[in-house]
């Protein structure tokens, strides 16, 4: 998990310039900042991996793949084609 405290230096509609304590200048999407933030605000950003969600996604994906294969990837009787 990463947790950092950052100062908002500049803010426009899509990008904010954030600064770390050790002078790293980071471009950050404004959309991820909470409401009411202005230049000068301090924000705390936490980022961690969501393994549970990844597992859930994986299972769902495999299930859909199976369905697609069963439907369209196997030689099943075809719908009749109109030939006149």
């Amino acid at each position: 998990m990463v947790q950092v405290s950052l100062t908002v230096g500049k803010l426009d509609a899509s990008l904010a310039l954030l600064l770390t304590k050790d002078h790293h200048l980071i471009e950050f999407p404004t959309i991820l900042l909470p409401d009411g933030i202005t230049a000068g605000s301090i924000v705390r950003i936490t980022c961690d991996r969501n393994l549970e969600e990844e597992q859930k996604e994986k299972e769902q994906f495999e299930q859909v793949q199976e369905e697609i294969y069963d439907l369209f990837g196997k030689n099943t009787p075809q719908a009749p084609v109109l030939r006149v």
Partner: protein
Amino acid sequence: MSYVTQGSIPEVLEKYANQSLEERTNCLPAIQDLGPPDLVQLVKLNHHSHKEISTFFYITGTNVTSSSSVAAVLNSFAMIISESPQLWFGKHKPWRVIQATFCSYNVFSKTDAVVTVHIPGSAESHMVSSTGEKIKETEQLWLETFISSMIRSIITADDDDAEFASIVELRKVNPLLNDESVTLFLEGFEALFWDGQKTGCHANLQLPTLLENYLVDTFFKVLQLTRRFDQGVEIVNRLIEQDESCRVLLAKVYMLSNQEIKAMDIICQGIKINPRDAALLTLQAEICMGKSRHDLAIHAATRAVESSPSEFKCWATLAKIYINVGNFEEALLTLNSCPMVTHKDRYHLKRVFNPLKQDLHLPLPVDVTIDEVTTLNPADVTQEHKTVDASLLNLPAASLKSTFAEAYGLLTEIVHKIGWEELLRYRAKVFVMEHEYKKEKSHSATSSTTLANDATIKAINCGNGQQNGNAVNDDDFRAKRLCERWLDNLFMLLYEDLRVYTMYRAEHMHLTAQQMEFKKTTLEWELIGMVSWRLKHFKEASEAFKYALGLRFSVKACKKLIEFYLNERSRMNQPETSIALNNLNQSTLSIQEILKYRSFLDINLISNLVKLGVWNHRWYAEFSPKLIESLAVVVENGGLIKVENEVKATYFDSQDGVYDLMNEVFKFMKHYDYPGTDN
């Protein structure tokens, strides 16, 4: 066409001996793409006056397999020019070709192959690097040269964009006329596959990859035209053994040969091995979409986007699915995320230098003619350009390229489904509007995004105009997106297209109601057709193109009509038992009506394809994959004999050569066992 006449060889008079060869050498170091077309230079002696001149022209489709095969081609050109006095700038001149040179660029090794024949005398050949140094000829270099030439020929065969400002001193020959060439190409493809990135790629892609490049595109096109699918499968299977990611090529070969189940089998196998293979996932999504299982398609397409978020194709496919299921909000959001390719131009054949107009020898081939097509006066077309309605001519959407054109197509699909008013409503719902934004003073939009413009885009018909976007709750602000600048621009272009289209339709209705005559030129009808086509009003577009052709021949209108008829043809083949007359009309057709409509389509397809063939022939182009494929559709459905009879009935007796010209296509299809050629 395997035979050539003096009338089918365009030439340019050189200002000094070897001008074209020198200019070509000067170009070599700067080549960044597939290079210039192959060049033929001729030295011609008038054996009466002893005057010597030199000329040149470009050519594609020659099988540049070795110096001796090229020498044979040069000898045959020399013979045709020399065999009888040539009509040369108004006079018959007894030229004898005493020397002929051929150049062909090798994109893999960046070398130029040069073959010269002296007549009478021997042939000699050499290769030069891009800096002009002589290089030792090898079999490998000749193979690369042949493949490069084949790619140029196939990729540029039906280049619609290049219609204006294109090279006229160019012959396009069908490179697939004999089996050995096809076999050699397929072998060469397999050998050079791993170097395919060097050939570049379509303008929709940021960069060529191993699996998507012009060499691969050419491979598929050759398989399709020669129907050598089995051989294609064998080759790709060998590639898969070396690199698993090649599985997508196999799936595509199966798709080309209508083996959809086999394709899906391969796709599913591949995705199991690499669940983040964006190419396979996109293909899977497209198939599911074709089967109307949009729920499954969305899953696959979303995973494709997640796997390759900087590829336009993945995003465009997802947007397309959302449009199909009527989820226009997600469609707009997805469209807005599309990564656009901004820097690339499509590959076109380019001259090595621009000749003066008076140095162009552009003979009229008299062996195959249809009067209205062959003798179209370019001055008339120029005159139309001078008098055309400027608002029609300068519609900016007409010049959109690559990813921008595709994104525009998605946007027009939405507007075709729900109308402009609804589109504006969705737009205001998902994007931050200018008026909302002004409240947030501390902010400013960055250069690549923008605020959706309130003022400039209004309702098309002022009467219908309602205030858009004002109903949005302020709290929604942060949930909304900023609109990408390019997308905002597409809305503007769409507005202009719709305005012109609406005006034209109003005028049309008025004139029709009053039973008055239209006073438009072919060019104007063409432009009206194109704006209707962009807006997906295909029926209206086809009417405009028909009006255009009613006044004079127009290759653009002709090609678009062929496209329209083909689409209608495929609609008539749908497995649904109920086919509506058109998308808007809900009443369905009876079997009898369907049969009658099909027959109408076939006859119109044949007549337009014949004209297209004659037009191509008049401009020295004997090779058009589009023509072959279109005719193949008619043949597959109706049988070759019926098609042959139709052409014969109209053209056989008139001694105009048209049947002979079309017969070359029929022979080609028979040779490669096209479906329907056996009856």
